[in-house]
């Protein structure tokens, strides 16, 4: 009861209406849900069918534990209403579904809310909450039903990575590998965790072993090839690095990062061709654009370089990009 009341705190709407309706809405916003309910029931008697009275009464009922009673009115307003009232009804309805753990019913409501209100903090919060609740449920079931599975260790490792506990994550990946040596992606993730855990040169060698182990299991893993190339490049072994970058770009022809990396080890027209291909594959790839700009400049193609600079200027990274970077650090393979 208290939880659902709290969930409605902070929902705001600006509207003009009659005295009882106004008082009821104000009471709702102050968190006086029981009083709001009484006031709005009275208002509804005076003006049956009034959208504001109906919706805020339903919200007040939901906030006082009456989700079942409130749901039809909220659904009706959400499906056929308009503006902020519609948004409020949708948020209230979704909260009712979440409070009752009816994730299947909450999902379409929240999806529609997101479509209608793509930058709304309340809606995005609900969306995050829905997925978190679903994720928590799945994790709980997994830990309960298959506690000895290598997947439990894998998932634990991934959670530890998110928490920045790379040494612990690596230990969990190792446990997962010992339970299922044939599972793909574990060595790759372990290699990434080792690189994140330490800046020591030895970490490069240890991580390379894991990426190579991944390749032994899955020779077509372009991301693992790329990582081996990166390690060799960091160790200034350009000749071998180029072999791995080339193989990565053959395995995944739509892998612009591999083309960019390879271009740095090539010169002249060959480098330009690789970068032009990378830019064609992913026009918003800043690394590819930047490298192409410099390659054009080096080749004396000033006008082409300037054109790339203009494109780069347009790609100026918004702050949100940092979160993408953060996700990349977690070892997500390029899509």
């Amino acid at each position, binding site marked *: 009861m208290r939880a659902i009341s709290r969930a409605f705190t902070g929902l705001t709407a600006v509207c003009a209406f009659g005295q009882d309706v106004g008082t009821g809405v104000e009471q709702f916003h102050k968190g006086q849900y029981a009083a709001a309910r009484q006031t709005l029931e009275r208002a509804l008697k005076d003006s049956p069918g009034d959208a504001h009275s109906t919706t805020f009464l339903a919200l007040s009922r939901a906030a006082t534990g009456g989700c079942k009673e409130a749901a039809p009115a909220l659904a009706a307003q959400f499906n056929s209403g308009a503006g902020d009232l519609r948004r409020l009804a949708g948020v209230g309805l979704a909260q009712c579904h979440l409070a009752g753990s009816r994730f299947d019913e909450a999902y379409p409501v929240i999806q529609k809310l997101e479509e209608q209100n793509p930058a709304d903090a309340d809606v995005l919060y609900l969306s995050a909450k829905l997925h978190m609740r679903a994720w928590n449920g799945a994790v709980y079931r997994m830990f309960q039903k298959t506690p000895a599975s290598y997947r439990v260790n894998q998932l634990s490792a991934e959670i530890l990575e998110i*928490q*920045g506990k790379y040494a612990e994550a690596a230990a969990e990946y190792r446990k997962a590998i010992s339970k299922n040596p044939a599972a793909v992606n574990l060595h790759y993730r372990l290699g990434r965790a080792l690189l994140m*855990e*330490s*800046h*020591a*040169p030895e970490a490069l060698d240890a991580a390379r072993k894991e990426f190579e182990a991944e390749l032994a299991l899955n020779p077509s893993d372009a991301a693992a090839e790329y990582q081996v190339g990166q390690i060799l*490049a*960091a160790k*200034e072994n350009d000749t071998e690095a180029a072999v791995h970058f080339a193989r990565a770009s053959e395995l995944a022809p739509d892998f612009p990062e591999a083309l*960019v990396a390879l271009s*740095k080890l090539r010169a002249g027209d060959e480098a330009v061709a690789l970068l032009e291909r990378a830019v064609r594959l992913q026009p918003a790839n*800043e*690394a*590819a*654009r*930047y*490298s192409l*700009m*410099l390659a054009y*400049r*080096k080749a004396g193609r000033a006008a082409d*370089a*300037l054109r790339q*600079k203009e494109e*780069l*200027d347009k790609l*100026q*990274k918004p*702050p949100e990009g*940092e*979160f993408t970077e953060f996700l990349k650090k977690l070892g997500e393979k390029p899509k």
Partner: protein
Amino acid sequence: MRALAALVFSVVLAAQFENTSRRAGLIHSIPNGGVDSKRFIIETTGSGAAFIDYDNDGFLDVFLVSGGGGTSRLYHNNGKGAFDEVTAQAGFTRDGWGQGVCAGDFDNDGFTDLFVTYWGRNALYRNRAGKFFEDIAARSGLTQNRIRYNTGCAFLDYDNDGRLDLFVANYLKFDPATTPKPGENPYCWYRNIPVNCGPRGLPFDRNILYRNEGAGVFRDVSEESRIAKPSQHYALGVLTGDFNDDGFTDIYVACDQTPSLLYMNRGDGTFSEEALLRGVALDENGKALSGMGAASADYDGDGWPDIFRTNFSDERETLYRNLAKGEFEDVTRGAGLSRNTRFVGWGCGFFDFDNDGWQDLLLVNGHAFPEVEKLKLDIRYKDRAILYRNTAGGKFDDVSDASGPGILERHSARGAAFGDIHNDGSVEVLINNQNEPPTLLERAGKPRNNWIILKLTGSRANRGAIGARVKVTAGGRTQTGEVRSGGSYLSQSDLRLHFGLGSAPKVDEVEVRWPGGATQIVRNLRPNRVTAITETARP
């Protein structure tokens, strides 16, 4: 056996640096905010260090900028390897969040003046005949209409009129009353621990250029010169130099979490910002790094000034090679500088510690957040320095581990200044450490190679010859250097130029291109001494 011999040989070759600050009398701790945690970003960025000869006695003195809770300190070099504190008698009494320092003789009276940046009002300390300093910022037109977070600075004569102008970098708009506290938003976290917020999430500010109008008056020309045009950069370290060799001084600014800036001097009183196209804004992957300090030298001996920049942990340091005419290429990896990725680098400088004629490189480190110590990772709030030896041929060797205890001591270092305090040919390094006394890195045992220090004095050009470019030819090689104000991280190195000469018994030729374009050649100089060169009057 051969391997053992090689090992012994390399150990014998390695220079040994020690921290002699206590012995030298540099004993005062320089406050800079929290020791175990920091609430605000202002506590993380200070402060600079300077080597200047303020009384013209031929020996470099020491100036250390202080954060809040102390005054900046001036120490006089007694000529015997030690320093006496002269802070109060020299007129330095102000408390405040000091950040950077740069030096130049802005009034051409023959005495080096100091400019000190603050969060708040900056200070222009006019040197009164080497006796004391007087803050004349207000009457010189250097006041600002609001509180600004000034960081790096440099005197330069951007219009070659013989008077030193002044560039001041601004980090961001900082107000403790409105800045979120640690952990309050996503920009106030680092590796899952709450830390002081920023720079991301805090509002940008713009850089400032003041033109010296003469008679001790400066005028803000930021708008008309287009210095104020770039508006989305967190500016820290300032490095000046004529990077395209057109006779006009350009300005490079290391920027935190945003692309670094290169203001190219158009020679008509305006600048155009061209860092991206010229290849010095980002790293080789097109990513903006957290630039802190910057240094320049012709490390590969091709006659063009290159740029080095220090960055944050999980990033590489960056070495940009000047391909000629101010177009650069990121050569960090190929030069052997890509392996130290755990450090947050700040002060940096090229210096020839073994006098072999090739510019070596030192950078000082220390994480921004004291809280990282709790993580028990290999990144540290107090960390060691990194010393790279230039092996010629465009490559560096990391010789830190073999270079003595001074390099390996852990401090949260910020500013670093380079200069020869004994005039014996061995360059010392002064490092401003947060909440600790400074470090004075001295080489134990002097290098065997020959050297020369050039002290330039302008007559038509500005008196301190800032912006003069020098070519030194000795033993069949030509080295280049440039007299610079500011640089490193918010610091001021010796305004004299030091060159290692290897085994060359003499300097065959010194060519000076003075600001304004006049060229002067001096031949057959004896090595192992400080040599003064004064600009000759034009015919």
